[in-house]
């Protein structure tokens, strides 16, 4: 088995993603958590590029890592939450939570390991379905109605955010 550059990149990105995710969960300071999450998102975007889904990779960076995570940062900064506020209470609940999550992972892996699709391969670094041209065409023809409706969703989310956040 010869190791290609893609294999190396894949494993590297995977390790980065999982490590950053773990750091995000374990960091005491919320600001660090946000930053680690951004790192995770970048790693996932890297995976998208590996899969030749360039449009999603870019959108992921712009929307998630850019807009959403900055929004998180704003909220944390605005409310002055950037300190280690969480008192270490109820250690058992944490252990139970970690165990439950671990169990879920094990059982999911065990269940899906034997799935019918396990012999299948996701084609890496080829195919043009992830290109903007292709997706855009699909989006504005087949999925044009959901696309337009999603703009209504944004509008209502905007209104909702303003109404909720407004001072009485």
């Amino acid at each position: 088995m010869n190791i290609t550059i893609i294999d190396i990149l894949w494993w590297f990105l995977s390790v980065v993603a999982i490590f950053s995710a773990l750091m995000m969960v374990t960091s005491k300071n919320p600001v660090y958590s946000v930053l680690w999450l951004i790192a995770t998102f970048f790693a996932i975007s890297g995976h998208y590029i590996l899969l030749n889904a360039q449009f999603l990779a870019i959108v992921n960076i712009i929307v998630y890592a850019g807009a959403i995570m900055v929004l998180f940062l704003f909220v944390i900064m605005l409310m002055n939450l950037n300190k280690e506020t969480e008192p270490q209470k109820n250690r058992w609940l944490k252990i139970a939570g970690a165990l439950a999550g671990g169990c879920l992972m094990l059982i999911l892996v065990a269940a899906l390991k034997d799935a019918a699709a396990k012999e299948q391969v996701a084609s890496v670094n080829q195919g043009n379905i992830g290109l903007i041209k292709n997706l855009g065409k699909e989006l504005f023809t087949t999925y044009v109605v959901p696309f337009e409706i999603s703009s209504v969703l944004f509008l209502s989310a905007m209104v909702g955010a303003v109404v909720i956040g407004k001072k009485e």
Partner: protein
Amino acid sequence: MPILNYIILSIALFSIGIVGVLTRRNAIIIFMCIELMLNAVNLLLVAFSKMHMNTAFKAGDLAGTAGTDGQIFVFFIMVVAAAEVSVGLAIIVMMYRNIHSVDVNFLNRLKQ
């Protein structure tokens, strides 16, 4: 790349998200964990989309667009996630304003 790798990676990220939701009490971090879970699912969707494309390729459909739907779905999930985050953060701000904390353990009004 074998699809099993992607499945296991996604499950790992998803489970980390779950563990975060279960162990952390800071509402913002819980929210971020949810985003992480969404991304894990997105990654798997893209992988599956490419898997379908690969199958179609092997069947000889070189110019086909099999698997596009999966990526469109990811796009829509991002749309919904963005809307969700805007509302969710507004709720967290509201909560902070009312109880001066973002600790979910103070949010036990459901008991009544």
